[in-house]
């Protein structure tokens, strides 16, 4: 990842699932957006903190890791639909056998990765199956 400010400026979203909601049309956005995709300039966005519960839309077990994630492979990556509506990409931790399309999940605070032995450690949100 290697850019501290790039990660730091989104800490609220990465740690606490802070997104936005359009007052005009009511749609929720996570990751946060500053322009509503429906209302565009007519929209008015306000901060919104998501509950952190949702379900798995699709998932994969990644064997060939992304750069910086080599130590975690194999890991489960999923698209999760939050109960408020928006979808996001996140890792799902826990037993891969418990993970299926439609599995209910909740957010947890976890280490995401690190820049080598002496670099920054990144924390953020992952998900776990609700009944795990």
């Amino acid at each position, binding site marked *: *990842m290697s850019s501290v400010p*790039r*990660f730091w400026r*989104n800490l609220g979203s990465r740690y606490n699932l802070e997104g936005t909601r359009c007052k005009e049309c009511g749609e929720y956005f996570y*990751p946060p957006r500053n322009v509503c995709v429906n209302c565009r300039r007519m929209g008015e966005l306000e901060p919104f903190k998501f509950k952190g519960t949702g379900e798995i*839309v*699709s*998932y*994969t*077990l*990644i*064997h*060939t*890791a*992304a*750069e910086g*994630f080599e130590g*975690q492979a194999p*890991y489960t*990556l*999923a*698209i*999760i639909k939050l109960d408020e509506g*928006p*979808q*996001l*990409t*996140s*890792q799902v931790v826990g037993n891969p056998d418990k993970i299926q*399309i439609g599995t209910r999940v909740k957010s947890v605070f976890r280490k*995401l*990765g690190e820049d080598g032995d002496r670099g920054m450690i*990144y924390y*953020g949100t992952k998900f776990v199956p609700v009944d795990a």
Partner: protein
Amino acid sequence: MRDVAIIGVKNTKFGELWERSLRDIVVEAGIGAIEDAAVSGKDIDALYIGNMSGGRFVEQEHIGALIADYSGLSRNLHVPATRVEAACASGGLALRQAIMSVASGYSDIVVAAGAEKMTDVGSEEASSALAAAADREWEGMAGATFPGLYAMIAKLHMHRYGTTSEQLAEVAVKNHKNGSFNPIAQYKNVITVDDVLKSIMVADPLHIFDCSPITDGASALVLAPAEIAHKYTDTPIYIKATAQASDTIALHDRRDITTLDATVMAAKRAYSMAKLAPQDIDLVEVHDCFTIAEICAIEDLGFAEKGKGGIVTANGETAIGGRIPVNTSGGLKACGHPVGATGIKQAVEVVTQLRGDAGKRQVAGAEYGMTHNVGGSGATAVVHIFSRER
């Protein structure tokens, strides 16, 4: 708007070209296309080049100027050169810019090229550069890879429609067979379904043989106004449609991840512009960066009902000699995927087919061909339709 024709084409060999640089391969493709068109450097009004990531792959930006220079078009002729970037759709977009330049009347003879030199860095760095086509902050930082994103498309497609790993493998098997007939293809080896299923898992359910490779290669086309195309060649191939559409950069923000809405919309615009329907198309080069991508593409372009792409492939309907031959070049899977070159290479293949010059992989009597080039996981789609008749 003026009608536009393609009057010259050239691909370099695709593969791991250790002894050749980015500028070497683009110049070979460009000069080859210019010779094929029998035009002179003095005739060229503009150059467009698709290149995704010279900055990451060879630490070189300003690719347009570099290529014009080393093609001998700069110091004396000062031909304007523009690099076009849309990740893996850079080539298709370069062609579209070139078409619009000729159609508008701003230019007459225009070169549309595409190139990527990917093997000067290791495969980890190449994968990281490619991951920049997705949303770095909200996909990449979660640990997403491109195989991972397409694996999630595949997983849901299988869950919802019953598509199988064997059907995905059939895409790779067909494309390797087609590649075996293409002299420029990176892989000319024929493979079996079993070979695919036994290859290592990259991101479940995608095996390494479900994935397109890392490739060096360049391709080029020469365009001219249709009314003067016969001055240069007996077999000009005409552009019937150029269309492009956008969708969300992140896969998770799509309406439905098993359909690339950008492909659907670009195809709709292209069919409308050409006044044609899917059943009129004789062959198509689709963006099979992964086997599931070809399945989705043939559905989204209207060649198979949604959810039936796997069955249609396994039935042989997309093979050469089938109902709608798909990826006669070998596709990205077997011909190779030098990302910036791919969209141009697809057009070179369709022009070669429509000219009747495709040898053992020739689709008999082909009148209309289509290309489909995708950026990222579907945030950009470009569709072109070509015809033998004006």
